[in-house]
């Protein structure tokens, strides 16, 4: 579809020396990070470490102060947000961001029609419309929301909103999805069924997620990067991260996380 994107590259996303400054505050300091194709890559770190800011500069809602971002072989450092989406960079939101006044299926269709080039059409073929509707149904089935397709998105439960958020994001045909705390606010059961849904997604899809729940992180992640005070302090496999001295230090004082991180070992 888009030239350059099919290039077989083990690295989907690469940040080089990325810094972000708000006035005197240096929120990200020379972060270099790569995300491998097909990875379930988790980004963890104490509150205020700069995880959300890092997400923002990757998705394009914020610009980097310094550094370079390469996605799918293209430099996207200064590209507008919607252009990055068109290149295959999807995201879900920490506060689910949906079209509350529209039905569940209409939410997904809005995303599908953009991708299939129908969004500006005044008089589309009925075949085009059917295709959009069928694709939207497929995606709802994938996240397990098919029975709820006619309900208004604003009437869904918290967990269902998360599922719909994922379906809407996948509708943009991303090669990489950024998920910002996807299980936040979910009950245990909801989180577990959400995880199995994520696990069932095609292996070719790369996921980069910010997550606070260490159970979720160690259940899902194939790679973990740890951010603290705007710096990348550790980057490795879950086993390596578990044993890292620096990570333990960064989390000191956040007893709850420590217990979760290192307790069950």
């Amino acid at each position, binding site marked *: 579809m888009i030239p350059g994107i099919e290039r077989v590259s083990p690295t989907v996303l690469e940040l080089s020396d990325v810094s972000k400054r708000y006035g005197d505050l240096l929120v990200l300091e020379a972060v270099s990070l790569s995300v491998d194709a097909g990875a379930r890559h988790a980004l963890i770190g104490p509150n205020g470490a700069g995880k959300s800011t890092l997400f923002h500069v990757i998705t394009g809602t914020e610009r980097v102060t310094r550094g370079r971002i390469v996605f799918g072989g293209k430099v996207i450092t200064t590209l507008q947000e*919607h252009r990055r989406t068109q290149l295959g960079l999807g995201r879900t939101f920490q506060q689910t*961001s949906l079209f509350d*006044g529209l039905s569940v299926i209409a939410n997904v269709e*809005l995303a599908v029609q953009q991708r299939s080039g129908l969004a500006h059409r005044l*008089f*589309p073929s009925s075949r085009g419309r059917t295709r959009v509707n069928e694709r939207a149904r497929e995606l709802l089935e994938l996240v397990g929301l098919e029975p709820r397709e006619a309900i208004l998105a604003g009437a869904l439960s918290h967990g269902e909103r998360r599922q719909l958020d994922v379906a809407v994001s996948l*509708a943009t045909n991303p090669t990489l999805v950024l998920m910002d705390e996807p299980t936040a606010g979910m009950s245990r059961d909801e989180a577990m069924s959400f995880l199995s849904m994520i696990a069932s997604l095609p292996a070719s899809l790369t996921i980069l997620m910010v997550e606070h729940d260490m159970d979720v992180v160690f259940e899902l992640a194939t790679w973990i990067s740890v951010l603290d005070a705007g710096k990348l302090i550790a980057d490795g496999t879950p086993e390596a991260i578990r044993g890292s001295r620096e990570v333990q230090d960064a989390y000191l004082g956040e007893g709850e996380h420590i217990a979760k991180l290192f307790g069950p070992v």
Partner: protein
Amino acid sequence: MRALAPGRAARLVQLALVALLAMAPLLLGDFRLFLLTEILIFGLFAASLDLLVGYTGLLSLGHAAYLGVGSYATALIAIHLTDNVFAGIAAAVLSSGVVAAATGWLAVRTRGVYFLMLTLAFAQLLFTLAITWDSLTHGANGLPTPKPTLGPGDGGGALDGGTAFYYYALVAFLIGFGLLRAIVASPFGRTLVGIRENEARMRSLGYGVARYRLAVFCIAGAVAGFAGSLTVQHSNYMSPSGISFEVSTLALIAVIIGGRATLVGAVLGSAFVFIIRDELSSAFNEHWRLVLGVVFIGVVYLLPRGLSGLPARTGLLSRRIQTTAGGSA
């Protein structure tokens, strides 16, 4: 009633309404028919505003600018070139679309109150231009225009008399209104609603939002210009008051009283506004605006979804309400 599917019932109601409109000259006197013609034309204008306000969430306070550009274009063509209606309409749609593109290019980059102020400013600018550009517009004296004709060249097939013009306006209205209906039902129309509901998410879905805002601004402006053309052809006169702040606000009031994002509500609202004006101006003289204001406040408080939300309110469509309520429970 129960046997009818909701879609079919709606279609029957629509057919009945169109049939009623087609028979109106038999049922109404000259004065009422003149008023109905005015309502249809203004209703089309208000419906084009609903495309911005109701569907896209762009609150414009200066939509009369594009109506006015269309009116002046038609008036000038009729005076200087030809009184053929199609030439007048083509000039109106083209010029108002171009002016909407030029002003919209700046306006769609702003949000909320800034968009409101900018559209108001553009309209006031054009209003002032219309008053001061004496050689073109004859200033506040206005431009009397010849009666429009349907046939080619001057004088052929004159739209003489209220009934002939009414049918002409009705067909024009149905074409314009049908176009607006098709737009809001299209994928493009859904995109507009998406922008209204959650602009940030639209961007993250890959939508270049500014482009769509500009497109809808131009379409709404062009349809307003179409209505402006009909306005002049109906009244055979154009003056700066046709572009005034009051025209913009009356259209906005019509959209809100009728019910946003319904299109038909804009026409209902226009009927309401015009009937209040004509029925009450004899009783209250210049104070009819006061009465309209009070009614407006009442409607906003009692009917948040406007007149077109009234059937649901009174339980005629109670089934639909139950499904909505059941969903949120």
